[in-house]
């Protein structure tokens, strides 16, 4: 089973990249605009990741040492942008930071010029919005891993701030920051929906967007293939680097209780400025959508129902595919040694490095000689979404599978437990909680995706994110906000159902 999954994954990632070059018109020459898209992608990803991680350091430090009412809620909220549909985040940011947004209104009132975020500022702002919370959670986990005794020792020695930094923070940052930076760099490098919505044209075009344009606007398959190859090589290079540094864990568990910190009081005001401003930065855009959208849900066109059903169907299909693949890989590799573990890790990173639009373009070209590719828009979207969620599902499931094998395998062999009993009585009950969490992630990520569907979309087929993008395009901002509310509600509901389903059973294995 593991082999089959591996083969399918390789076909999807490398196979489609090869298909793009061989099935199309060979490789097309890249123009000046393509090179500037490549430069922009690298530059903005570097800046976005750098800013996210840098700002996350004081925020995580503050959260690590201060306790206050609502702290747990805020930490939970930090997990939300990860499953928040990108296009919803963008809509919210425009409502706050756009030319017609709250801040521009205030600036105009005070006699200043309006903000203009289309282009690099908007792209980077959106990337920081999505990744600052992620980086903060990574760092917070780093802080949580420091034994409380160490804080006590350093504090009782009345160590200078410099000694505190050198003894505690520096080792912690050194172990978390490179991995967090690389992961966020990779996520920003393959950014599509953000650049599509606020890139503002050639000045904010990422490689992923350039592939879409070469394909959908110019129908220049040769150039799309070349760009796809560049994207694949860049991501591959980052993936190799990621192999060399430990990537942070993304499960977000174990952040509940932090050691009581004796140094908390002295930094109170600075810490709360960081906490408050990051919370406002996260909450304002979401609040803007909620206040604008809630009242207009009733006025939505009836197509919202079809779009909802389509989105949920894609999400559920994608979840089943993703979880089957993740389980297959986990079972296959959990028992083997270091090499297998590295291989499994590599597969996960391959999934991260694979660009959805490259896969979509490759599949289009593979299907094209035989059938109308648009016919397969939904299955293709579901499978690509499954593949995109796989790295995250693997990271949640793999350790749990490995642990169960380690704890019970000898017992199973000595008691001669049947396969069925092993699976249903021992393995699955123990995996139920991570399984629920992973399925929730996969479903929510797929619900919010606006990538491959844009490549294959035709006018009468749409998912909720696509409908939202089209309403934004038609400048029906009230209705767009209403669709955003529906979309977020459905994403959260799916996530909650799966996650809840996993937890409900956890106590009675």
């Amino acid at each position, binding site marked *: 089973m593991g082999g089959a999954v591996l083969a399918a994954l390789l076909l999807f990632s490398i196979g489609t990249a090869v298909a793009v070059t061989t099935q199309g018109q060979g490789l097309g020459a890249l*123009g*000046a*605009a393509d090179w*500037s*898209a490549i430069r*922009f992608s690298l530059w903005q990803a570097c800046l976005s990741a750098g800013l996210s991680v840098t700002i996350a350091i004081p925020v995580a430090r503050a959260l690590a040492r201060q306790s206050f009412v609502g702290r747990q809620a805020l930490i939970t909220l930090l997990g939300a942008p990860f499953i928040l549909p990108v296009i919803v985040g963008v809509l919210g940011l425009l409502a706050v930071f*756009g*030319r*017609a947004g709250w801040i521009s209104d205030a600036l105009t009132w005070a006699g200043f010029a309006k903000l*203009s975020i*289309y*282009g690099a500022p908007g792209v980077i702002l959106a990337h920081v919005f999505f990744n600052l919370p992620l980086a903060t959670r990574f760092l917070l986990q780093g802080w949580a891993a420091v034994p409380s005794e160490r804080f006590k020792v350093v504090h009782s020695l009345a160590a200078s701030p410099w000694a505190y930094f050198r003894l505690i923070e520096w080792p912690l940052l050194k172990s978390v920051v490179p991995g967090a930076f690389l992961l966020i760099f990779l996520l920003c490098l393959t950014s599509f929906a953000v650049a599509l919505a*606020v890139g*503002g*044209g*050639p*000045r904010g*075009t990422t490689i992923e967007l350039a592939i879409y*344009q070469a*394909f*959908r*606007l*110019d*129908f220049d398959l040769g150039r799309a293939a070349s760009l796809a190859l560049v994207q694949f090589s860049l991501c591959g290079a980052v993936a190799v680097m990621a192999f060399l540094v430990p990537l942070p864990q993304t499960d977000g568990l174990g952040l509940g209780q932090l050691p009581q910190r004796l140094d908390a009081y002295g930094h109170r005001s600075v810490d709360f400025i960081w906490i408050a401003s990051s919370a406002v930065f996260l909450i304002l855009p979401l609040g803007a959508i909620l206040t604008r959208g809630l009242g207009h849900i009733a006025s939505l066109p009836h*197509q919202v129902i*079809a779009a909802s*059903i*389509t989105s949920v*169907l894609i999400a559920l299909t994608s979840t089943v595919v993703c979880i089957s693949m993740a389980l297959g890989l986990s079972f296959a590799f959990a028992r083997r040694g270091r090499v297998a573990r590295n291989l499994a890790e590599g597969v996960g990173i391959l999934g991260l490095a694979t660009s959805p639009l490259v896969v979509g373009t490759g599949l289009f070209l593979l299907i094209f000689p035989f*059938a*109308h590719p*648009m*016919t397969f*828009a*939904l*299955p293709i979207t579901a499978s690509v979404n499954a593949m995109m969620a796989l790295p995250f599902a693997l990271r949640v499931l793999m350790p749990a599978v490995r642990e169960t094998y380690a704890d019970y395998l000898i017992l199973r062999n000595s008691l001669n437990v049947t396969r069925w009993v092993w699976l249903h009585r021992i393995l699955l009950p123990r995996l139920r909680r991570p399984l629920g969490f992973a399925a929730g992630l996969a479903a929510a990520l797929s619900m919010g995706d606006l990538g491959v569907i844009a490549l294959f979309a*035709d*006018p*009468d*087929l749409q998912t909720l994110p696509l409908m939202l993008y089209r309403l934004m*395009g*038609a*400048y*029906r*901002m009230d209705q767009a906000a209403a669709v955003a509310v529906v979309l977020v509600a459905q994403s959260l509901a799916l996530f909650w159902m799966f996650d809840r389903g996993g937890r409900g059973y956890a106590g009675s294995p």
Partner: protein
Amino acid sequence: MRTTSLFAGLFLATTAMADTPVLTVYTYDSFVSDWGPGPAIEAAFEASCGCDLQMIGAGDGAALLARLKLEGSRTDADIILGLDTNITVAAAETGLFAPISVTANYTVPGGWADPLFAPFDWGYFAFVKNAEIESPTNFRALADSDLKIVIQDPRSSTPGLGLLMWVKAAYGNDAAQIWADLNDNIVTVTAGWSEAYGMFLEGEADMVLSYTTSPAYHLIAEGDASKSYAVFDEGHYMQIEVAGKLANTDQTALADQFLQFMVSDAFQSIIPTTNWMFPAVTPVAGLPDGFPNTLNAAQSLIFSPTEAAALRNAALAEWQTALSQ
């Protein structure tokens, strides 16, 4: 109905068969919007054709062509309505269009003779603004001003491509410099005309690339005289919008009937106050009060389809390079 097609899309390729023949027309989004010509034209044609006219909005004009290339000979479309003369050569090169035999007394400036495409309306590109904003009188003055504009992507939108041609027609080899100077005036580049015009109406920009006829919409349909367009002394580029018939349509007779209907008074009299363009054949009743005058020949810029096709790629590269700075 929607659910059936959803499941069909999920699992199988099926074609819905109905008793009445279906004529499928791909067109641009604003044409089929509730306030566009689509609904009235559908009613008028279906009254006499004994068919089901399905008009499908597929992005802006230039995106129509890209979509057609993507679908190739498998397309469901019988008619493509909404290309313009800047891309008819590229459209003809796909080999997907069939010769047509439409006859009409066109009032399109410069007359009309094209074996594959028939015009349905035309207009002049212009930057539309609130009347109280002081107009720049040409692109150089616009570039020097602090005015913010929204334009369309030339790869997906025919107005976007028209703007490229406009700057090229007015400035020739200096076009790249004009674009470099305009860069800081551009708020954003949208995929289509609808997006850009919507942003302008919401106050996200001072001016938007549209048509000299757009202010008439606000005047006639809304009784609002607050919009005007900036008169440019280098002239205004023209757009002639056309439709063509797909070679492998399964509704040849019906497609021919539609194209002939397109240049009839029934269709042409709908155009001025729904698509807000000059009709390709002036209606018997004339143009409505409040419609702007046509410009004289010296103020009207246009490249022939072959000139435009030859210029397109270089002009696009210039535009992309200047705007990616």
